[in-house]
């Protein structure tokens, strides 16, 4: 069963000509329709995250300022990020959608969650909007879960590093953040030597990929470098920052994945869930509408056992050397951090 929240009423968050646009969500919903799930699709009711739920990961001053900014009509928050009059309410619902999906999964104890919302969230910092993101949707859900005593694995396969999520959980030993991303690229963070704060060493795993990298290299990095850390961490929940802008057709970056690669990534992520009903995907980036539709369908289809046709997984791109140097850099950074902490 696929449990979703989102997909409607997001038209108020739009800036003409901006790539983060309502048509993205329409493409996502078509990708879900392509799976023809019938009774296996459950849409949970919209819900606006409360002030206290947002305040777990965002500063109160920022929440006040963002709300006021929108109510005054909005505008540009930085070179990339906009907000409209409606954005505050839509961002609250985007954050609440994750909470609603996680709650439904907890009640049912089965199914796969998909949070199909915009604006996206993984660049949003505690005190700042950034990179098209206003509120950090996946962080709000992860913080809810850790407040219940859970140990949360966040896998972020968006082509951009999720600097906001990493920063929010930098010193939280109950959240393991694993990111694959093109590097160098916006936002400029996500180096392999970023391994977590002194209170949570080895709970951040960054796997930078060179331009042109294909799915085989990404899987190699995840299996060789991230998997042992995840096994040691023993997550009780798996949340995914599912951006689809690493697809070869996406105009925002230069990785070379196919929809079939996203299917494999989804299978990899879900393999770490200790029991059914513990996996939820959160929409992040993805700006080529056809690739977005196909990649959503492929990744969710892989988790639901669908036989939907996908593009073949890719291989042969650059980056095998990067996998090794990343692993070496991580180990060196961990040694230095351990020496510093003692």
């Amino acid at each position, binding site marked *: 069963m696929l449990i979703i929240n989102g997909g409607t009423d997001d038209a108020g968050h739009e800036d003409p000509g901006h790539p983060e646009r309502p048509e993205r969500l329409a493409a996502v919903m078509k990708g879900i329709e392509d799976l023809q799930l019938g009774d296996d699709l459950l849409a949970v009711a919209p819900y606006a995250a409360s002030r206290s739920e947002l305040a777990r990961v965002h500063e109160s001053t920022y929440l006040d300022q963002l709300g006021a*900014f929108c109510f005054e009509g909005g505008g*540009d*928050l930085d*070179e990339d990020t906009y907000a409209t009059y409606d954005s505050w309410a839509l961002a609250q619902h985007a954050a609440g959608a994750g909470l609603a999906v996680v709650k439904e999964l907890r009640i049912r104890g089965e199914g796969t969650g998909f949070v199909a919302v915009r604006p996206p969230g993984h660049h949003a910092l505690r005190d*700042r909007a950034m990179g098209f993101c206003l509120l950090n949707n996946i962080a709000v859900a992860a913080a809810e879960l850790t407040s219940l005593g859970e140990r949360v694995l966040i896998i972020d396969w968006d082509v951009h590093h999720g600097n906001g999520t990493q920063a929010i959980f930098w010193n939280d030993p109950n959240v393991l953040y694993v990111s694959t991303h093109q590097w160098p690229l*916006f936002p*400029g963070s996500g180096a392999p030597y970023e391994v977590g704060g002194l209170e949570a060493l080895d709970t951040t795993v960054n796997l930078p990929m060179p331009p042109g990298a294909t799915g085989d290299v990404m899987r190699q990095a995840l299996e060789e470098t991230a998997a042992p850390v995840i096994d040691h961490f023993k997550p009780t929940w798996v949340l995914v920052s599912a951006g689809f802008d690493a697809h070869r057709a996406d*105009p925002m970056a230069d990785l070379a994945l196919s929809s079939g690669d996203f299917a494999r990534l989804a299978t990899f992520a879900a393999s770490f869930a200790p029991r059914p009903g513990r996996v939820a995907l959160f929409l992040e980036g993805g700006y080529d509408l056809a690739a977005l539709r196909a990649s959503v369908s492929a990744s969710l289809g892989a988790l639901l056992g669908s036989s939907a046709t996908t593009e073949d997984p890719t291989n042969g791109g650059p980056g095998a050397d990067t996998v090794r140097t990343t692993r070496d850099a991580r180990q060196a950074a961990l040694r230095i951090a351990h020496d510093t902490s003692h």
Partner: protein
Amino acid sequence: MKPIHTIAVGFDGSEDAKTAVRWALTLATHCDAQVVVAHAVGLLERFDAKNVAVELEESLLRLCDESGLEHSRAQLEIEDGDACSVMLRMADPPISADLLVVGTRGQGAHAGLLLGSTSLELAEHSTIPLVIVPRASTTEQSQMA
């Protein structure tokens, strides 16, 4: 007080940023410092496939000539990220700037708003001294020179 060897100044091509760069270049002539002119490449700049490096380099050379600073003492640094994050990184190796300089507001922010102001964000987070150069300082800058 720590001597100023390296000044990092934000540059997005706006008039406010040019004022800040002029101020930083002039200061450098007085304290024998190097100037790193930092340009942040955001998501939309990449999406629009802009390549502003040549334009920024030419602009920087003109500003150096105006300020009387040898070209070799100013370098353009183009980095991925938002303006605030890129400027904060200038304080870290390998740049290790001793002073950050920015204009009051660049291309992305709105006048009079606390949110979206790179200069105010930097004022809150910078670990090294920060100078926010108001637009009106053009005249003062030329007097200083």
